[in-house]
């Protein structure tokens, strides 16, 4: 019979793959198959909710949403992907516009039986819950959903813990008749981020949050003598004490609120914030930062630093963008480094001359994920005398050694190429650094190019940051119009050709341990970083992170002007893929590396990967065109 084919198809794709055969049979008992020619809309945002979930059997669709006037691309979906599943959580209007970008055939499965599975099948519940969340938590909607993590589960606690256990019990309440200022005063007295307002009968009538004070009062220049009633949010969203945490998250997401009122028998029992929800998973970026700040010895920092990797998993599960993850991780690592430097200063006393601790490589670009090698150096102010010079040398020698050991204890292995402040070469006064760069730039040997490229991504983490600014001014001035030197850098940016094979398949490693795998760092990340660095040098941009570089080049560089959005997308995508891959490796107890098996990618991911590599290749062609004379 014809449904057998459908069952066979569904049994390979989530969430249907979690179902047994008899459940699948029931599900397809009313299945139909529909054809959508290229260019037709399958559903319109705001149109009636389709009574089906569409499973794409063949073809591709584009999902977009309109916000106010602008059409925002959400994603492409292909074979095996679903359309319209958000509606199983309720609502009677289609939430997005879906258009067939190729002739598309879908299986149409009735929504109701799938909805019922939410209550009877935990795997299905988790699948929809997670895909729903990762799509919605990030409001830009631009994010790629991570299949692997979605299916591997985790965070079971979300499904087993009732919100009543989590919600803060001592709710601070105030009358709805007080003024905005009085409300803010109460909030700062109690150090709370939200305040419940109650009516004359003691029933909660509204809530105000830090966000309201910022968005509705300060930024609007509103008079804070106004009654708080004018800015409070009503009606607020409630959850029963017995509801599970995941339901609470869904409510928050659905209503776009960060607080829920937890009710028991119609009475306000507590309040739940999204931060509480992050905390139950053991880690919150904020709590780690607080813990780092509170320590005074290296040994006390060690256990805190061990928790940093968990944050990445947490953020991934919450559907954070790769750039947000790296930003948070960089911020935390910076604080850790600063703390270690503070401890070092305390131990060795005031430095004889001002200095600046700099980091480079991925750390310099703020693109750190899991613990990476130490890549650091030290610039100190030019000493006034040879006596001061030898004092400085002595001080910073033992100082940097202490820092290196501290970092090592906290999980940052030493740099194998010895790019560290402990190496006397990379621990020098400003004038020596200037000389380094002028030598590299005037005689660009391959080693010089490598060194300068490494250091071009430098960033001050601690100390007298002016030292680095001066060095940057000096270097940028020298590089900006130096066509010859830029030619060398251009050669480097086109060195790693992206893996687009003749048959549009991935070119993977041909032999060795990683045979048939794709090196994300060498083939994807490095070319992007190199391209964007080249353009920044051309325009004298000081930013070091690839994303910040793209942003500030947007109006300055003709190529970036045209490709900025695509580049940002591509970079986010490769970065996310790499983080997910490494997190999976870490969870399995494997050593982390940059190799990914292309077969584990979803169709959508494969498609985006290909587009990314095409983009890189296109821009490399433009670079070759630009630097024709100097490319060899």
């Amino acid at each position: 019979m014809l449904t057998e084919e459908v069952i066979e198809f569904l049994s390979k794709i989530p969430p249907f793959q979690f179902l047994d055969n008899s459940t699948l049979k029931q599900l397809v008992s009313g299945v139909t198959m529909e054809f959508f020619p290229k260019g037709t809309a399958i559903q319109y945002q705001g149109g009636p909710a389709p009574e089906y979930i569409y499973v794409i059997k063949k073809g591709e669709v584009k999902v977009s949403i309109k916000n106010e006037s602008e059409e925002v691309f959400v994603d492409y979906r292909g074979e095996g992907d679903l359309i319209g599943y958000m509606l199983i959580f309720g609502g009677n209007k289609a939430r997005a516009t879906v258009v067939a970008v190729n002739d598309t055939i879908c299986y149409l499965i009735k929504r109701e039986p799938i909805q019922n599975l939410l209550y009877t099948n935990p795997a299905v519940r988790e699948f929809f819950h997670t895909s729903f969340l990762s799509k919605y938590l990030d409001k830009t909607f631009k994010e790629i959903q991570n299949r692997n993590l979605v299916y591997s589960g985790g965070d079971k606690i979300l499904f087993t813990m009732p919100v009543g256990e989590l919600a803060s019990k001592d709710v601070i309440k105030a009358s709805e008749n007080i003024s905005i200022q009085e409300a803010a005063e109460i909030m700062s007295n109690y150090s709370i981020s939200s305040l419940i307002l109650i009516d004359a009968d003691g029933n909660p009538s509204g809530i105000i949050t830090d966000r309201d004070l910022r968005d509705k009062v300060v930024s609007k220049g509103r008079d804070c003598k106004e009654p708080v009633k004018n800015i409070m949010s009503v009606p607020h969203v409630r959850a029963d004490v017995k509801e599970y945490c995941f339901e609470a998250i869904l409510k928050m997401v659905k209503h776009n609120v960060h607080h829920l009122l937890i009710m028991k028998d119609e009475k306000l029992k507590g309040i739940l914030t999204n931060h509480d929800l992050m905390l139950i998973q053991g880690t919150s970026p904020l709590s780690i930062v607080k813990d780092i700040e509170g320590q005074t010895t290296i040994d006390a920092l060690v256990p805190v630093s061990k928790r940093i990797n968990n944050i990445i998993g947490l953020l991934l599960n919450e559907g954070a963008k790769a750039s947000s993850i790296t930003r948070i991780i960089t911020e935390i690592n910076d604080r850790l480094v600063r703390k270690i430097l503070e401890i070092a200063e305390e131990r060795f006393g005031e430095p004889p001359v001002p200095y600046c601790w700099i980091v480079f490589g991925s750390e310099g670009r703020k693109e750190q994920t899991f613990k990476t090698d130490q890549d650091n150096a030290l610039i100190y102010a030019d000493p006034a005398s040879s006596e001061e010079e030898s004092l400085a040398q002595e001080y910073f020698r033992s100082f940097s050694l202490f820092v290196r050991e501290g970092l090592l204890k906290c999980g940052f292995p030493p740099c194998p190429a010895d790019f560290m402040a402990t190496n006397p070469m990379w621990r020098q006064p400003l004038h020596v650094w200037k000389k380094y760069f002028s030598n590299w730039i005037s005689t660009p040997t391959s080693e010089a190019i490598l060194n300068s490229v490494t250091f071009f991504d430098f960033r001050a983490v601690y100390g007298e940051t002016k030292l680095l600014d001066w060095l940057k001014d000096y270097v940028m001035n020298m590089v900006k119009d130096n066509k010859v030197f830029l030619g060398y850098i251009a050669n480097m940016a086109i060195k790693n050709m992206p893996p687009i094979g003749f048959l549009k398949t991935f070119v993977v490693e041909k032999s060795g341990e990683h045979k048939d795998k794709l090196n994300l760092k060498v083939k994807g990340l490095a070319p992007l970083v190199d391209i964007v660095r080249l353009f920044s040098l051309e325009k004298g941009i000081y930013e070091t992170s690839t994303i910040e570089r793209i942003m500030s080049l947007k109006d300055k560089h003709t190529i970036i002007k045209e490709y900025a959005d695509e580049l940002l997308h591509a970079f986010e995508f490769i970065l996310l893929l790499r983080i997910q891959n490494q997190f999976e490796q870490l969870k399995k107890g494997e050593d982390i590396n940059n190799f990914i098996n292309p077969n584990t990618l979803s169709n959508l991911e494969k498609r985006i990967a290909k587009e990314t590599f095409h983009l890189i290749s296109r821009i490399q062609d433009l670079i070759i065109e630009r630097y024709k004379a100097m490319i060899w």
Partner: protein
Amino acid sequence: MYNFFKIRKQETLSVDLEKSISEANYTVIDTELTGLNERKDSIISMGAVKMIGSKIDLSKNFNKLIKPEAKFKSESVVIHGITPSDVSELPAIDSILSEFAEFCGDDILIGHCVSIDMAFINREMKRVFGNPMPNPVIDTFFIYEWIRTQTPSKPCFSYVPKDSGLYEIAKCFEIPVRGAHDALTDAFITAQIFQRFIPALINLGIKNLGALLKVGHPEKGGDKNSKSGLIYNF
């Protein structure tokens, strides 16, 4: 059960000619025969699939093997893979016919080179019930030919298929053609072809059943010029 008195009274079903072709109910049919001689040969299997507009209902289909009255020819064994011993235990056509008619209901019937199927089905219907199938019939081959004359350059409509062209046309639309050459599979392939035709027809102004019957009816429709040269060649 199907009301056969209704059939006797009424030669053809009345159809709402204004009904949109993307909302009408269709039953896509196919039969397998022992051969093409209308007097000597007989039906050995019947398959049918339901469509509502361009939605193919995969869960409602008709698939019956029938004990043939005529003798097997070795050629058709090769085509269908059904051997005489396979069919000796099967029900006779008489008992299947009413089920089939019931399955078709008041739908528009669709088939590829459907005249042949209808000739055999109606021969049996007349023999058993005294009346042919009352449903209007549409031929996907005629529709294909018609679209081709309207838009000869459109992909998949640009060539003249060698024979009835069911599989050829299917392949061009990337409709999977595999498995046995049985009546249900072929009906399903035909349904998928018709599914592709619906948007193309609407683009060409064929929006309601009245217009569809004009271009797709095996006796009235099709392109007059090519019709004379049309030979069903299995």
